[in-house]
């Protein structure tokens, strides 16, 4: 990181930290929405951006998490934030079970299968599968989250919960990227045959990243359920998956900053131009086409990893 980027990051963090003090409830809620989508997009970025697996059914994992949290909370009165790990597990294992037989499929086939799975999940939710999802009504009366005896109710409070979680996620994911695991995902994306031929267990990493990305989406689902206090199948439509897919591609697959920027643009901008909301989808479509022509690597393309080693043996300078 050079000086300018460090400064920019510091300024961004500082701005985000104090933002709720200057904004009204609506604007804070827009930022909350951006945060939730950012979180989801970061988790999809692992699968799509880092590992290059075409997953267009991320909403299914998000839904799994949200419904797990909602069911545990409304039926068994488990405090909503306590359900976070369980939602992660349920969503993660669901993803593993789904991905296990299909993960070896070629890119576009995987895309179709993930779309299919998310549709099946949505249909199952609508049809009140096992009698626990509440059908099209969804689940309501989810209790507000409580943290150390403090009930989170206002958008401002949710802001810190959501963006705190985003910060935590970024911290972990950046470290993950700079590791054996993170590199293995890139090997997969670049050339699966070569990765396997270099001793990387490609099936394992495909499954692992599906599980991890889904688990994170599940936790985002829990936060969503806590914030909305009501969830219903239409919040997890295919369209949500498309929007997430778009955020990752638009921002720059494999780049955390890019993904966050795209979340701001894709979720934030339509709020600004509410008056033109009927044309916003048109603009989205156009932007997607033009971006692929002009800048297919996204607004902020992924950068190479930096390693600490003596760059040239004769100079011995470290950076």
């Amino acid at each position, binding site marked *: 990181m050079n000086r300018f980027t460090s400064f920019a990051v510091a300024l961004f963090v500082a701005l985000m930290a104090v933002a709720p003090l200057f904004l009204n409830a609506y604007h804070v809620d827009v930022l909350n929405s951006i945060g939730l989508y950012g979180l989801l997009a970061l988790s999809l970025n692992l699968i799509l951006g880092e590992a290059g697996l075409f997953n267009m059914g991320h909403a299914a994992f998000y839904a799994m998490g949200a419904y797990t949290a909602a069911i545990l909370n409304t039926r068994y009165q488990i405090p909503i934030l306590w359900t976070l790990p369980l939602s992660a597990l349920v969503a993660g294992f669901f993803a593993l079970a789904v991905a296990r037989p299909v993960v070896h499929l070629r890119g576009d086939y995987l895309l179709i299968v993930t779309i299919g799975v998310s549709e099946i999940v949505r*249909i199952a939710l609508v049809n009140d599968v096992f009698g626990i999802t509440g059908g099209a009504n969804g689940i309501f009366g989810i209790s507000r989250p409580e943290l150390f005896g403090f009930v989170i109710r206002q958008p401002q409070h949710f802001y810190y919960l959501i963006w705190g979680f985003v910060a935590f996620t970024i911290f972990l994911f950046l470290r993950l990227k700079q590791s054996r695991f993170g590199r293995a995902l890139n090997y997969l994306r670049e050339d699966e045959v070569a990765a396997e031929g270099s001793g990387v267990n490609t099936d394992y990493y495909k499954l692992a990243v599906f599980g991890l990305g889904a688990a994170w989406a599940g936790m985002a689902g829990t936060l969503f359920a806590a914030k909305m206090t009501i969830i219903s199948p239409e919040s997890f439509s295919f369209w949500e998956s498309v929007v997430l897919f778009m955020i990752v591609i638009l921002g720059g697959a494999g780049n955390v900053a890019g993904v966050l920027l795209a979340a701001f643009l894709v979720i934030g901008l339509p709020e600004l131009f509410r008056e033109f909301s009927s044309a916003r989808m048109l603009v989205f479509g156009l932007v997607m086409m033009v971006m*692929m022509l002009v800048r297919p690597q996204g607004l902020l393309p992924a950068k190479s990893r930096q390693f600490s080693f003596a760059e040239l043996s004769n100079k011995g300078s470290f950076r």
Partner: protein
Amino acid sequence: MEEFLQQLTNGLAVGGIYALIALGYTMVYGVLKLINFAHGDLFTYGAYLGLTLLTSLALTDRLGFFMGVLVLALMVMGLVAVLGMILERAAYRPLRESPRLSAVVSALGASIFLQNTLMLIYGARFQVYPDNILPVTAFDLFGLQIPVMRVLIVLASVVMMVTLYLFIQKTKIGTAIRAAAIDQGAARLMGIDVNRVILLVFLLGPALGGAAGLMVGLYYGQINFTMGWVYGMKAFTAAILGGIGNIPGAMIGGLLLGVVEAMGAAYLSIAWKDAIAFCVLILILIVRPTGLLGERVADKI
């Protein structure tokens, strides 16, 4: 038994439409290895263009029912084919050498763009075809009530499919399409103008899709700007079911999917119908990833 047969004809009618649309997916995928997400929307354009031409030109009043509809169908197919060509030029050709993902995203963008253009032009409300054009009667066949329109629909789609099949199998251009689908590089070396093949595929596929759109408009009466998405998804499923890139496969896949859906609705559950269709798709991909008629090709390493 009677209900079973009735459901069979229901399924075949729906499947005929799926098959027509699936042909467009399978041809484009065969040659370009690209899911043309916007294909479903070209189908919708067929329906809307058909409505506009029908009401503004009053063809059926001037030329009588059969001639009117025939001329209308040809006009719609021509216009949608041109639209397909423009789409290829604008959204896909510049990305020919780019990674697969770019093309997929561009296709998705094109789909969203086309859909919303339609919404801004015609409005979000559904549109309705005039209901006095077509015979709305049913005839009795061995105790089965079969609407006349359904027979026409199935006949029309079968005729178009067979024509396409013969075109692909028997003509020189058709052979070029097949060759380009197997190996673009080799086809180019053999002196086939691959660009022309791609252009042709983007004329033929959308023309059939547009015809399907018109048929849906005429038969069901009600059209809306988002319907291409559902039909597109189903048709793509059908294409994979039959073996993507394989033209008879798309036809069989379409008809089969229609029947599976009708039977699923009849004997399992109506509400789970789409889920059943997707489950079949996933099962096929797991058990036989090449589809019913697709041939296994070794991955080149």
